[in-house]
């Protein structure tokens, strides 16, 4: 194979080869000692995914990812709308503020959230001073959800901002002029015309949150087992590499489907019919093999 550029070499070493290895391992056999035997191909690992416990984990992960995505839209849309409707110089400042936490290591940020939500943290202190007792939220699904929304919000805000910034506001004025209330003008004009930003943001948030394992592990105390943590466990503790690999392949395929759907909807007549060339770089928030591969 002729390598045209260093980029191709990079992709080969860090994406194609690991992906190939994972695919190969997913068809391998786990010996009784926990080793992986490459002789004797089978689909047993894929059949094992049908197990009730694993399906439950997948379902829970999908639910958490969906919840995170919906909350990110709910928080991110008003936020992006606010930024996009400020004067130009204010917009630049606000965007930098959005980006700053993003430049901090993801792990550090999640530990910061853990401190904030912990029983010795400020949230708890406030709750105690109000006479509401100790604030017990850490290591609950609520804490995990808060952490996930915080971690992935930037992925939602940026594409939404891009879509809203391109919005032709004379269209909402036209809607108001044609007897639409402010809310109606938003539903009938602004929202449909920023749809591609919403779809892009949803994919960018859903994909990494589905496979996320750093946030649930640190904030959920590993009590709520999710697919990302479960895969990590197969490679580390359970020493069932074929099952971990099979689950990874499944996750990658699911995410590729999501990305493909996004690209199809993005090529439609949205965004005021204006063509948009957007470049996505998802999966940078967490140093995690599964999402990195999926991106």
């Amino acid at each position: 194979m002729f390598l045209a550029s260093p980029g191709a070499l990079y992709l080969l070493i860090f994406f194609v080869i690991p992906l190939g290895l994972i695919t190969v391992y997913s068809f391998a056999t786990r010996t009784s000692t926990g080793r992986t035997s490459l002789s004797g191909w089978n689909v047993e690992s894929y059949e094992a995914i049908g197990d009730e416990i694993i399906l439950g984990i997948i379902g829970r992960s999908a639910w958490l990812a969906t919840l995170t995505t919906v909350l990110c839209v709910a928080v991110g849309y008003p936020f992006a709308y606010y930024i996009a409707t400020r004067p130009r110089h204010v917009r630049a400042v606000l965007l930098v503020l959005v980006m700053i936490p993003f430049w901090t290591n993801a792990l550090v940020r999640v530990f910061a959230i853990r401190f904030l939500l912990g029983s010795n943290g400020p949230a708890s202190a406030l709750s105690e001073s109000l006479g509401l007792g100790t604030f017990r939220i850490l290591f609950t699904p609520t804490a995990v959800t808060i952490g996930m929304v915080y971690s992935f919000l930037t992925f939602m805000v940026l594409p939404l901002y891009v879509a809203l910034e391109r919005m032709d506001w004379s269209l909402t004025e036209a809607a108001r002029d044609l007897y639409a209330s402010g809310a109606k003008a938003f539903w009938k004009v602004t929202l449909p015309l920023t749809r591609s930003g919403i779809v892009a943001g949803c994919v960018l948030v859903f994909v990494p949150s589905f496979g996320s394992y750093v946030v649930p592990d640190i904030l959920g105390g590993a009590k709520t087992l999710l697919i990302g943590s479960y895969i990590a466990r197969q490679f580390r503790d359970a020493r069932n590499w074929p099952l971990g690999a099979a689950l990874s392949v499944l996750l990658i395929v699911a995410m590729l489907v999501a990305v493909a759907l996004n690209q199809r909807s993005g090529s439609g007549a949205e965004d005021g019919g204006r063509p948009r060339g957007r470049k996505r770089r998802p999966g940078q928030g967490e140093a995690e093999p599964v999402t990195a591969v999926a991106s």
Partner: protein
Amino acid sequence: MTEPVAAVEIEGVTKRFDDVVAVDNVDLAIDDGEFFALLGPSGCGKTTTLRMIAGLDLPTQGSLRIFGEEVGMAPPDRRPVNTVFQAYALFPHMTVRQNIEFGLRMRRVKDPELSQRVAEAIGMVRLAGMEERRPDQLSGGQQQRVALARALVNQPKVLLLDEPLGALDLKLRQEMQQELKALQREVGITFVFVTHDQEEALAMSERIGVMSEGRLLQVGSPREIYERPSSRFVADFIGRTNLIEATVESSGTVRLANGVVIEAETSAPAGSDVAVSLRPERIRVQSRGAGVSAGASLDGEVGDVTYLGHAVVYAVTAGPTLVEVRNEGEVGEPFAVGDEVTVSWDHGAAAVIAE
């Protein structure tokens, strides 16, 4: 006292954006059924005035009534007016039909009235067969018709048009001028349109309001505005003119800067400084010495000759003043640079601007 109610009545309206006064204490009444133009250079406040009538901007102070009803602070969806936007602002994610239906649907108009009115509007702007297209599949002229239909289908009491022909090329613009006039006569709705193109304003409207730096300088018929400008700005902005400094001698005569006394009507008191506006096409140019039959004349020398095909424009130096003369339909080039000539005009041609 059965004076008809004005379609739009603006009283002492001022609009400030931070420190900038966009519209400065404007009073204006637009009659029912009138085709009215707000004319002025960019940044003169004409678009802001229109936007305040539409409700897209709210006045800082003053009163704004539409058919007697105070609407100054009402939101745009509570006003009986519709707007044709400058770049049309058609909804790109909707078809032509959906665009036109929008206002009716917002007001919960149901079938069969809905489809009947939409069909009428589509027929009126000759867009039958285009109903299912999207705006980006239409030409500029067609988009403009959709914008017109989208506004008119609501049967507004006043139609506002913001530079409606600005985005069209010259030929199409002239066609649309005729079409808009015909359309206005047909529907009988008051049209208020904003333009920076003085020819367009003269050609289309029954009355013109000239604005500059937020102030409304003069309101009148195209003929009044052109022939009896009330200020230097209006005289200079509408068409071309010669502005000659002068002093009032008596109620019927003024003395030009070069000492020549001409007859011209003015109400300004004797001794006050005025300007005399002389339109180039109202002035004749003759060889020096040929009998001058007209009311007033100046001797001068041809400084420049510009041949335009349908007209010849002379720049004649008469003492300290430079007079532009435009001879329409002249055959040949009777005068050359340096020729000694006399320029003359009839009494009625000179308009005195008391300012």
